[in-house]
C-alpha cells in the first residue's frame, strides 16, 4: 500500500512540469470532497486525505500511524466498525449513516462506506474507508421539514400545502369550523392548530370525544351539574363548556351524537348559553366551536340521522383532511417525523428506514391513516436495535405482504392495462420518482414519460 503524503509532495507544479507518478493518486484523493483514509492490518492509518482532515478536524500528520477509531471517533467504532464488518462479511459497507465526533465535540452526521484493501496478488493488506459530510444535507433536510411543517402538522402534498395556507385565515376568523376526515387523519391536530393560531391561544382548549360517552355522561361532562341534580351529584361540577370559557371547544365525532344531544348542542351553538343539569340559571360562555367527524354529515342529514339546522350551524367553514393513501408523497416526511420523535422519546438513534422498507410503506393503503403509520414506526422501534429499519421490523402483515396489496393483474386485462399497472406500482415504490421507476422497469425515463402521457390521455 502506498503511504502517500499529499500536502507535502511536490505534485503541484505551476510550470507544467511532469509530476512524479506516485504523487498522482494523492492529488486525486485530495481533490475529492469525500473523506478517505486507509488502514493497515493493525487498524493503523496509512493515508488520510484533505477532506478527512476537514471533516474530522484532525491533521494528517497527527492521524497517520494512529489507530483509526481514535482518529475517526464514529458512533459505530466500538460496536459495529464498518471496516471490520466489511472484512467479516466479505462485502463492502455502503453509505451507512452514522455520526462522528469532531475534535471540538460536535456531532457530525456522515455516511460511511468501507471495504477491504488488497494488493495486486489479492492478499489482504488493510482497508479503505470513505465518508461524506452530511451536515449540509441535514441542514437542508431541516429547512425542508420546516417548510413542510405547520403547527406540528406535516405535509408537502398539494392538499396539505393548501391547508397550511388556509389555516391562519380560518384561525383568525373565530368562525365555527367543521373538520371532515377519516379516523387517524389528524383532525384534533388541526383543531389544536386553529386554537394555537387564534386570539384565544392563551385560553383553554377543551377537546371531547362525543362518541366515547353515553348521552347522560356526555351531557354532564359538557354542561356540568348542580349538587343534587341526580343521585351521585354531591357537589357542583363545572362542565367542559364553562371550563373552556374564552377558549375553544373541540367536539370530536359530532356525527355520532344522539338526536336528543344534537338538540341541546344546537342551542349552545346558537346562543352561547346553556343550563347545567339541575339548574334553571343559564350560563353564558364565550367559546369558539370546532367540530369534527369521520362520517359524511350531508348524507346523515339526508337520511334524517343528523339535524340539518345543527349541520348548517357547524358547517360554517369546512376543512377536509385527505386520507394518507391520497397523499403518499407525505409518507417519507411523516416517517422522518416519527423516527425523530421516537428517537427522542426512547433515547434511541435509529437512522431512518431502509429503501426496501420505504417501498413497503409507500405501497400500503393505511386504513388507519397517519395514526396507523405512527403505530407501525413505533412497532419497528421495538424490534430494531439500531441503524435502519428493515422490512422485517414492520408488523407481520406489512412485512410479509404489503406490496401484495398493490392492484394485481386480473383476467381480461389488455396489454396496455397491464403495462399501466406495472408502471403505477414502480412509481409508487419510488415515491413518484420517474427516473428511479424507469430504471427499475428497464426503460428510458423519456419512454416512461411518454407512456404515462399516453395512459392519461
Amino acid at each position: 500500500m502506498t503511504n502517500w503524503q499529499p500536502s507535502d509532495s511536490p505534485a503541484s507544479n505551476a510550470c507544467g512540469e511532469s509530476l512524479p507518478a506516485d504523487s498522482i493518486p494523492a492529488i486525486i484523493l485530495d481533490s475529492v470532497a469525500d473523506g478517505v483514509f486507509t488502514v493497515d492490518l493493525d487498524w493503523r492509518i496509512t493515508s488520510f486525505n484533505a477532506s478527512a482532515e476537514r471533516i474530522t478536524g484532525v491533521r494528517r500528520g497527527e492521524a497517520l500511524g494512529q489507530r483509526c477509531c481514535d482518529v475517526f471517533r464514529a458512533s459505530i467504532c466500538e460496536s459495529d466498525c464498518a471496516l471490520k464488518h466489511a472484512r467479516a462479511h466479505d462485502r463492502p459497507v455502503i453509505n451507512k449513516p452514522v455520526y462522528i465526533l469532531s475534535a471540538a465535540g460536535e456531532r457530525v452526521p456522515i455516511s460511511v462506506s468501507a471495504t477491504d484493501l488488497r494488493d495486486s496478488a489479492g492478499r489482504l493488506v488493510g482497508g479503505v474507508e470513505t465518508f461524506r459530510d452530511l451536515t449540509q444535507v441535514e441542514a437542508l433536510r431541516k429547512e425542508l421539514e420546516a417548510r413542510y411543517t405547520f403547527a406540528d402538522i406535516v405535509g408537502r402534498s398539494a392538499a396539505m400545502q393548501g391547508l397550511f395556507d388556509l389555516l391562519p385565515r380560518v384561525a383568525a376568523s373565530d368562525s365555527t369550523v367543521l373538520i371532515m376526515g377519516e379516523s387517524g387523519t389528524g383532525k384534533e391536530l388541526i383543531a389544536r392548530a386553529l386554537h394555537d393560531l387564534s386570539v384565544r391561544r392563551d385560553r383553554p382548549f377543551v377537546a371531547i370525544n362525543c362518541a366515547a360517552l353515553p348521552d347522560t355522561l356526555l351531557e354532564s361532562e359538557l354542561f356540568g351539574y348542580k349538587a343534587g341534580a341526580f343521585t351521585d351529584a354531591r357537589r357542583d361540577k363545572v362542565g367542559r363548556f364553562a371550563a373552556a370559557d374564552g377558549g375553544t371547544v373541540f367536539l370530536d365525532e359530532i356525527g355520532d351524537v344522539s338526536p336528543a344531544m344534537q338538540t341541546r348542542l344546537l342551542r349552545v351553538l346558537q346562543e352561547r348559553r346553556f343550563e347545567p343539569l339541575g339548574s334553571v340559571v343559564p350560563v353564558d360562555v364565550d367559546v369558539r366551536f370546532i367540530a369534527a367527524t369521520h362520517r359524511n354529515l350531508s348524507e346523515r342529514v339526508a337520511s334524517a340521522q343528523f339535524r340539518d339546522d345543527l349541520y348548517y350551524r357547524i358547517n360554517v367553514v369546512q376543512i377536509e383532511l385527505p386520507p394518507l393513501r391520497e397523499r403518499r408523497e407525505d409518507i417519507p416526511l411523516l416517517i422522518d417525523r416519527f423516527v425523530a420523535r421516537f428517537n427522542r422519546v426512547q433515547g434511541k438513534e435509529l437512522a431512518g428506514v431502509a429503501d426496501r422498507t420505504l417501498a413497503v410503506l409507500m405501497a400500503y393503503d393505511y386504513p388507519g391513516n397517519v395514526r396507523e403509520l405512527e403505530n407501525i414506526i413505533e412497532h419497528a422501534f421495538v424490534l430494531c436495535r439500531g441503524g435502519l429499519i428493515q422490512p422485517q421490523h414492520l408488523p407481520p402483515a406489512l412485512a410479509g405482504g404489503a406490496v401484495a396489496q398493490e392492484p394485481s393483474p386480473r383476467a381480461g386485462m389488455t396489454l396496455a392495462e397491464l403495462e399501466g399497472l406495472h408502471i403505477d406500482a414502480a412509481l409508487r415504490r419510488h415515491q413518484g420518482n420517474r427516473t428511479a421507476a424507469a430504471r427499475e422497469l428497464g426503460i428510458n425515463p423519456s419512454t416512461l414519460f411518454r407512456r404515462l402521457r399516453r395512459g392519461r390521455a
Partner: protein
Amino acid sequence: MRVAIAASDGRITPVLDVARRLLLLDFEGRREAGRREVALAEESLARRIQRMVELRIDVLICGALSQSLHAGLLAAGIEILAHRCGCLEQVIAAYTAGGLNGVAFRMPGCHPPHCACRRGRRGGGRVHGERGVS
C-alpha cells in the same frame, strides 16, 4: 475515590456517547482497592449521565464525547479527563502516577489549551491527569 474508565477490548472506548462498558476503579489513597466492570445500556444522554451519577463516579477517563454529554457530566459534578486513548492498563498506570497528560495518551486532534479535555468541575486551569491519585 472512584474513577471510571470507558473501555472495551482493553482500550479506551473512542466515543463515550455510545460506550457500552465502564471499568470502575476504587482508590484508597494511591492504592487501587478494587475494580469492577458495569454495562451501559443503549439509552439517552440524560439517562447515561444519571447512571454515572448513580455509580458515584468522581473522575471519568474517556475518549471523545459530545458537547452536550460533556456539559451534563460537568453539571453533575463529575471530573472529566476527556480525549484520552491507549491501552487500559497503561492508562491506569499513567493516571496513578500522575502522567496521563502525556502525548501518548491524547487522542489525535486534542490540543490543550483549546481542547475541551482541559475543563473539569473546578472550572479548568490545570490539565487533567497531571495530579493523578492523591
